[in-house]
């Protein structure tokens, strides 16, 4: 029940709705008592022959009015209680989403998208259940259950009531137990299903390999055995699920038998009428739902507890990178002084960067060279202030970057990441990501600079082409060039290209770099690349190895140094060099 206390902020906020909804629920519980009683009275009157037309009409009118009132009350409690629950899920989802947008990259490094999605869907769903079904079952099992039992005991016979109630606690216990078991087995069934899903996904992605090796039948066999697992796991669920109905019927049958057996004795003794007996058995039927509800209640609240605490835990994670007090509200510009003594990614033993020092004058282009894992990307991530906690300083213009407001710092930086992520919307909107209201001409201009304009015109929908699953599938090179256009459209003071041309052919790469050089005259650019050809025009190249600068200089200077750069260069060009010599 802890979760109901934790949700009290919401119940307070929705006080009117909940109070009104609960009042309606209780009202329905009371009205429900009328029909069996009236049936009983009429039966007795008929049996005794004392029924009159006026009396009958009176009862029937009362019944009809009760029916209509119940309809209205039932409508309102649903809208009030279930409606509030939907509102809660909306509020929680919004909170969570806004929280997600404030989280630093290290947060996403530690968690998988799938898990975060699960919080946003399953956990919120469970909390919604608690605020809706949870309240309903709580109120209904107490009010309907209580009223019915009281009515049976007070207006008919309290001894008989006690006897008839004997089997019911077993039902509460059993259905609640089944519920728990069901959830556990359901999880296994879900797992089996998701295995099947993964298998299908994999087979389709690897369809060429399967076709090449002629392993269609073997793969179908594999699929069949996984789908058999799905069947058996689901059967295990079904075996528990199928227990509910027979259990309820069985236990109520015992109740009926007990009440008729002892009821008959009471009738023979003259302590009870036949009408009472009929009313009693109808009341007994009314107890099915509150008893079930009582069993459900525990499961709903238990799930709600777990889910709510998972959500609050997530919401309590503070963003690792915050604006300092009195942060500068001005976009940085000017020279860049990068002085890092040491930096480790959170949770890493090894330093990603150590003793990396360089200065980049405004308007200069710098190349960063090195193997995967040498620290190229780490430099860019620090410049973006995605990570902190380094020893040293990064000064942009006249102030360290952590003195600026984060938002203002990012205004100055255009970033093209290694893993080009595009959104599933139109190409135009992807390029105009930083400013959806920017003019078409600007979009085309950026696309032309990134040498993707012609490709885009080649699609049937042009700039209106949708990207992703539901739209056109782009080649890696096209995606990279769109990412570049997206960064260029903001005309950033500092452009960071993180190996962004790897999937583009050499000719296009050269052309893109040329147009960057021509248009970005007064602005700073940092390019990391595997391909050395991308960097030869840079004002300065640094060579990274195991997180530190081992060489620096211009392309020509580095070649003359005869060091690691030359070695990498030679390895890339070894065969070519030999051939060139042969030709000359």
């Amino acid at each position, binding site marked *: 029940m802890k979760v109901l206390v934790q949700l009290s902020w919401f119940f307070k906020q929705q006080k009117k709705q909940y109070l009104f909804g609960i009042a309606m629920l209780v009202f329905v519980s009371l009205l429900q008592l009328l029909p069996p009683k009236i049936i009983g009275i009429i039966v007795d009157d008929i049996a005794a022959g004392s029924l009159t037309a006026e009396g009958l009409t009176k009862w029937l009118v009362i019944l009809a009015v009760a029916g209509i009132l119940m309809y209205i009350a039932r409508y309102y409690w649903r809208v009030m209680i279930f409606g509030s629950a939907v509102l809660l899920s909306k509020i929680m989802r919004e909170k969570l989403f806004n929280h997600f947008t404030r989280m630093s990259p290290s947060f996403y490094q530690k968690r998988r998208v799938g898990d975060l999605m699960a919080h946003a869907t399953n956990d919120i769903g469970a909390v919604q259940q608690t605020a809706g079904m949870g309240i309903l079952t709580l109120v209904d099992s107490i009010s309907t259950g209580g009223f019915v039992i009281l009515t049976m005991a007070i207006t008919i016979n309290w001894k008989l009531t006690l006897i008839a109630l004997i089997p019911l606690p077993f039902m509460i216990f059993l259905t609640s137990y089944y519920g728990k078991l069901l959830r556990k087995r359901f999880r296994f069934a879900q797992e089996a299903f998701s295995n099947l899903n993964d298998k299908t996904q994999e087979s389709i992605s690897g369809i060429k390999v399967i076709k090449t090796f002629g392993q269609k039948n073997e793969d179908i066999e594999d699929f069949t055995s996984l789908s058999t697992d799905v069947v058996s796991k689901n059967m295990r669920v079904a075996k528990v699920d199928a227990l509910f109905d027979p259990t309820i019927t069985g236990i109520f049958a015992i109740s009926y038998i007990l009440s008729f057996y002892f009821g008959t004795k009471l009738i023979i003794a003259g302590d009870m009428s036949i009408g009472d007996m009929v009313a009693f058995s109808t009341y007994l039927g009314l107890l099915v739902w509150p008893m079930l509800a009582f069993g459900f209640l525990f499961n709903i609240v238990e799930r709600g507890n777990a889910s709510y605490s998972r959500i609050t835990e997530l919401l309590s994670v503070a963003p690792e990178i915050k604006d300092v007090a009195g942060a500068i509200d001005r976009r940085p510009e000017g020279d860049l002084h990068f002085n890092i003594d040491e930096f480790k990614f959170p949770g890493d033993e090894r330093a990603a960067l150590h003793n990396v020092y360089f200065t980049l004058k405004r308007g200069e282009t710098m190349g960063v060279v090195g193997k995967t894992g040498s620290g190229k990307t780490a430099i860019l991530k620090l410049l973006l202030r995605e990570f902190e906690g380094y020893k040293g300083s990064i000064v942009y213009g006249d102030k360290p970057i952590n003195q600026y407001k984060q938002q203002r710092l990012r205004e100055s930086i255009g970033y093209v990441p290694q893993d080009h*992520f595009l959104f599933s919307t139109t190409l135009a909107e992807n390029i105009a990501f930083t400013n959806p209201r920017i003019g078409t001409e600007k979009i085309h201009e950026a696309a032309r600079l990134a040498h993707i304009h012609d490709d885009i015109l080649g699609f049937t929908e042009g700039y209106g082409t949708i990207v992703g699953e539901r739209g056109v599938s782009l080649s890696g090179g096209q995606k990279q060039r769109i990412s570049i256009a997206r960064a260029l459209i903001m005309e950033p003071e500092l452009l960071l290209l993180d190996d962004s041309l790897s999937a583009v052919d050499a000719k296009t790469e050269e052309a893109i770099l040329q147009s960057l050089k021509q248009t970005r005259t007064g602005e700073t650019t940092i390019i990391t690349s595997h391909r050395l050809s991308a960097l030869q025009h840079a004002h300065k190249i640094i060579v990274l190895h195991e997180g530190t600068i081992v060489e620096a200089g211009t392309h020509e200077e580095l070649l003359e140094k005869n060091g690691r750069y030359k070695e990498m260069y030679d390895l890339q060009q070894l065969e070519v060099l030999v051939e060139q010599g042969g030709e000359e």
Partner: protein
Amino acid sequence: MSAEKHPKLTAKDQWVVLKRLLQYIIPHKKSVIIALVLLVLTVAGSIVGPLIIQRFIDNHLSTMSFQKSAITNIAIVYIGIQVFMVFVSYFQLIRFQDIALKIIQQMRIDVFSKVQGLGMRYFDKTPAGSIVSRVTNDTEAIKEMFVSVIVTFLQAIFVIIGVYIALFSLDAKLAFISLLLLPLFLAVIVVYRRYSADFYQDIRERLSQLNAKIAESLSGMGMIQAFRQEDRLEAEFDDINEKHFRAGMRNIKFDSILLGPAIDLLYAGAIVFILGYFGFLSLASPVEVGILYVFTTLIGRLFQPVQQVMQRLSIFQQAMVAASRVFKLMDDPDMEPEQLDSNQSEILSGKIEFRDVSFSYDGQADVLKNISFTANAGETVALVGHTGSGKSSIINLLMRFYEYERGGIYIDDVSLKEYPKEELRKKTGLVLQDPFLFYGDIESNIRLHDKKMTSEEVRTAAEFVRANEFIEKLPDKYAQKVTERGSTFSSGQRQLVAFARTIATNPKILVLDEATANIDTETEVAIQSSLEKMRKGRTTIAIAHRLSTIQDAELILVLHKGEIVERGTHQELLMQKGLYHKMYLLQNNILEDVI
């Protein structure tokens, strides 16, 4: 997660789909009959119970006659029926589940097999996610129909029939009047169905939009933050969230008006009517109160199944839409190219010849124009050219991923179309540019599904291509886990595993699509030397992105816009000073600055 458009189905379409779905029941005829019998028994039991109580009230309670034997009989019958019911209803529920699950399994296997037989053309035009949805999610939606809808519908019908039989046997006149309930039920169901379909559709689409938005924002959070679009995304999300909320509220209101409360109201009306009928009847002539009891009880039994049917209408609707999508996939004619089953030709030496081959993916623009070349047994032919020049198309035709109509492709002077599929698969080995690793371990990725291959053979293959060098450094060596398409391995390492996989089958013909991106220099050395070894004694068709890797090829074809514009050996082509020479210079551009 994908928010696909749901096709609108007409009643006729639905009927066609339903008929086809029901055919899946045929193999389970026996089981279905047993389940139906159990269902009838369950329904009968639930109706006989109140009837016995009615007898007891009218014959014994009202008359105060309690002979021991008669009472014991009634008690025994009642208890017996209840106990019997507990078991019957349990087995009936399980039996239907079992049938439904097996039907869906069969359907899944059918769809999956169909997918496996589709041509690459289909995979080009259909996103992988939506194919996966057909195989798993859509069939899951159909499962819900078999599990809950059909049984509920049948049960409702049986209950209605059973209740009315009982009512007619008790009081034909009142039973006849009670038949009026049926059109009322029907009216509520029809009205409900009419509107609920749209409402449910709406809320489902809103939900999938909502989830898609969250998922995408989470994946692209780095970009959102780097470009300072948090506020905009939040606003967009709030908008979707708000719309989803409104749809949810509308649904609750709609259900409250027409579903639960409405059914309860109808029930109240029915009770008023029955009481009035018997009440006024009793004023004129005596009435057995037991009958009154049983009427109110049995009429009550009608309402629950009707409500359940209404609740499940949306599942039915969803299942129909899902099934129509699944059947559309099953009927797709884009199958992989067929082989002529004429003879049992065998590939002996592996000479490959393209004669005047032209090809188009879409039937409009030719991506290959009059391609002719010969690769003699054991020779290497290299394909060079820009993206989109047609290199991959040549490989796609040779691998029979696509059917060609113009020109001919011959292996050992026999048309490619005349070899049995198994022979082609056995004798040709393809290494893809982005080698695909499956979930499992290294060994299973080399062996694939070939159960006859020994671990020894797996190791020999790995050693041959020098993949063993990195494999043996892994903590679990050949048993090292491969997850999520091998993302824990570098692309060079994946390439080496793919080499080993291909070499293990010892093909006569080798088809290579050289890996381009991000291969570190150390792996690259291993890859180059393995390639050389692999090519020995095998006819090789290789796509080369780095001209340096194919200088020893017997024939280099330079492709441009689907045509072979130059051909010859490396030296010859350099001397021609044509496109190849230009490409070569471009790759060496940096170098000329230096020297």
